[in-house]
């Protein structure tokens, strides 16, 4: 288990080598997605306001927030969530937001994170004829954000999905077949 986690963490960060310079210059779908803690108004806003005090990192009871350590990443030094390792459980009292003094994280934007789940249908076991629904069963908004459609396959409702990443975390593929990525 730990072995797996380590490997995938490494490969996750390797993805960042194709680095991103300027958010505005690169089309969203060309850069890698970074999942931010809840309460972010917009990525630009977050980049401006977050003063890297790491209070959110310290306060998260689920150890969901880590710090981006990829030097040429736009989010270098900023708190982030690697859902594959530990997702956000959207605590009802949002200790992360409560701890944030800079205003980078705000309660009024806590309804969802900055991403949405997407299923890689080429790799998802269910789309390949196996009976799997680990992601649906894991989703806190099961049957709403993530549901089994009439064809018996998992499907995301982007309107309802909060981007918490629990599905990505619990997908039963070694490399998750469902991932949090850019909102459309």
């Amino acid at each position, binding site marked *: *288990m730990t072995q*797996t986690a380590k*490997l995938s963490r490494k490969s996750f960060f390797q993805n960042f080598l194709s680095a991103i310079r300027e958010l505005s210059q690169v089309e969203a779908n060309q850069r890698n997605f970074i999942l931010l803690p809840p309460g972010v108004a917009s990525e630009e806003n977050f980049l401006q306001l977050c003063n890297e005090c790491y209070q959110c990192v310290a306060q998260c009871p*689920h150890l969901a927030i880590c710090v981006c350590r990829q030097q040429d990443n736009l989010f270098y030094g900023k708190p982030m969530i690697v859902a594959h390792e530990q997702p956000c*459980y959207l*605590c*009802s009292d949002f200790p992360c937001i409560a701890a944030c003094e800079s205003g980078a994280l705000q309660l009024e934007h806590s309804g969802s994170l900055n991403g949405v789940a997407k299923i890689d249908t080429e*790799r998802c*076991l269910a*789309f*390949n*004829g*196996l*009976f*799997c*629904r*680990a992601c*649906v*069963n*894991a989703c*806190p908004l*099961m049957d709403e954000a993530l549901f*089994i459609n*009439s*064809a*018996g396959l998992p499907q995301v409702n982007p309107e309802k999905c909060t981007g918490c990443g629990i599905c990505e*975390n*619990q*997908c*039963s*593929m*070694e*490399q998750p077949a469902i991932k949090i990525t850019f909102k459309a």
Partner: protein
Amino acid sequence: MGVTRREFIKTTAAAAAAASIGTTLLPGGVKPLFAENDMEWHKSVCRFCGVGCGVLIGVKNGKVAAIRGDKFNTINKGHLCVKGFYLHKIIYAKTRLTHPMIKKNGKFEKVSWDEALNFVAKKFNEIRKAHGPDALAFYGSGQAETEETYMANKLFKGCIGTNNMEGNPRLCMASAVGGYLTSFGLDEPAGTYEDIEQAEMFMLIGTNTAEAHPIVFERIVRHKMKNPNVKILIIDPRKTPTDQVADLHLFPKPGWDLAILHAMARIIIKEGYADEQFIKDNVVFKDNKKNLTYEQYKQFLEKFTPEYASKVSGVPVEDIVKAARMFGQAKTAMSMWTMGINQRTRGVWANNLITNLHLLTGKIGKPGCDSFSLTGQPNACGGVREGGGLCHLLPAHRVVKNPKHREEVAKVWGVPVSNIQPKPGKHTVAMFEALNKGEIKGIYIMCTNPAQSLPNASKYWKGLKEQFVVVAESFFPTATTKFADVVLPAAFWAEKEGVYGCTERRSQYMPKVLEPMGEARWDAFILRDLGIRMGFKKEFEKYKTAEDIWNEYISLTKGRDLDLSGATYRRLKKERGLRWPVPSEDHPGTYKRYVKGDPIFDELSEEKKKGRWIYFYGKPEGKAVVWARPDKGPEEPTDEEFPFALSTGRVLEHWHTLTMTGTVPELNRAVPKAYVEINPEDAKALGIANKDQVIVETRRGQLKIEARVINRPKKGTLFIPWHWEEWMANILTIDAFDPGSKEPEYKVCAARIRKA
């Protein structure tokens, strides 16, 4: 791990692609998909649930590298659930037990096979001599092969001479056995999976089919997709993934559903949905004491108005009426149930009441009609129900009480008939109770983990601690090996050959494709060698191969209702299993019992059948029984002190006590730990938030566990998946059992919950 990571990803993706449905790449196809990988594929059966899916084991360079669904297997037609898909990883789990060990001064020490077996033989013989044969016991498993259970049966009942020979199917299927025996006179369903695609209506009661029998569910889903008129009625106290297909869901308070079934029967008769001709020809009525007339049965039902049933169960009156009409109006109907019905102090009765509906409407014996019990374990039907692996049974649906049966079996076993006691031995709960009391002093546990899986588990640790315990297992440690004095490494699935018999009476062959890991040996041969060392050389030395054992077993089925004479290894190796009765090698097996096409029915004389198209030959005059059973509630109803009804159950991704699925990182990640499901309203009232640590408490114990606040359990009920040793749900469950089937009431007890 047997494969490198890259290779794994490649094979997973490829196998996944191969398993895809509706493409030309259906698995098991003629064209090998992994030509470049020179993978060799072997036809086998999934190790896990009672569905009995056919798998292909992919072997490369002497290692099992992938599993895929067998397209030609009629059960799963290439599909698998995620457990089956990851089977290959379990073979190479780090927790595989690879050498015998004896506990010396409180610590396990590696020993030779000779030392281990001599030690066990000596201890067992000492106990037997000093305290008699009934001071010894065997506790087996619905996951053991038929051959393995057969050997244990012979050693304990036939040679040692004790009927203290049980297995964990007592904890899961015994009530279904009792139900079939009392309703039809013979165990196991009349129909098969083939009925699914012909049914117009399904009643799923006490089953979370989507998670516990995924591929059966998959078949129901597909059938409904193609035929939107198919109606599905669910009766279950909890909303589950099975609800995906529900047309109507009744949520009874746990343990209070008997009145609903009676109320449905009453409506069915009153509104003219009963098949009066069928009833006249094929049915008799009984209550717990005497025979009834149809009129008297109707009288009995008068109490069960929908209003009464609604009051008892908490289900709205209109829903009960709707459910009854749904069942009555459908031309064909199939009911399916599993632990929610069986694991009850009135499990046999609940089984009877389901079958009543089929008998009253004549929805039995026809395509698309059956009262179909879903078996939990892969070989609970084959090895234990058919093989006779319970304390009152002998092989091939025989019972110890019957002198003729004892004689027939003793003859084949080559033992004096006096060896086999006429009195049933101790059933599971009684057996572990006797271990606690010291009446049983030595026990051999094979392929199961009772220290975790018994109800009210911690109560029974005392006996396991104090008495001489031998555990034959493929994995180490387990909750039970902790208490063992000797552990014996058992060959795992794919490292041994043998037969599994699944839910639909189908026996399927599993090949040996690998040598056992380390010094592990096949359970059947461990038992054989133990028998020889205990002094039963003549009785055991003749078994040289798995086929020897199988042949002897099927010779005992000759002429019985489960005739497997035609299911020889030669045939089973080629075919995707055979459904009994299969009386000869040229017989195709039986789709449906009690009707034309069933060789036993076909052979009945015309004067017996009197022109009837269905004849329940297990009962006098071939008439099945509609039972007027009282509507008793659970043993431990909720009260002020313990206001919640607690149920336990499974999740899709895990199996029983995690000895297998717990070794697969992907499955662990899918469901990493236990939780207690609580309804949002209840949670709010108690100030419990999602993921809070809570204490769940019953009269037997308490458990600290994470709360999952979710709209699945009804208000007033709690649910805990029972797989984890760390969060052992069976500390809480009740060990009260059904007086008929002796199956404990895992599914209902009273509990309370608070924030930790």
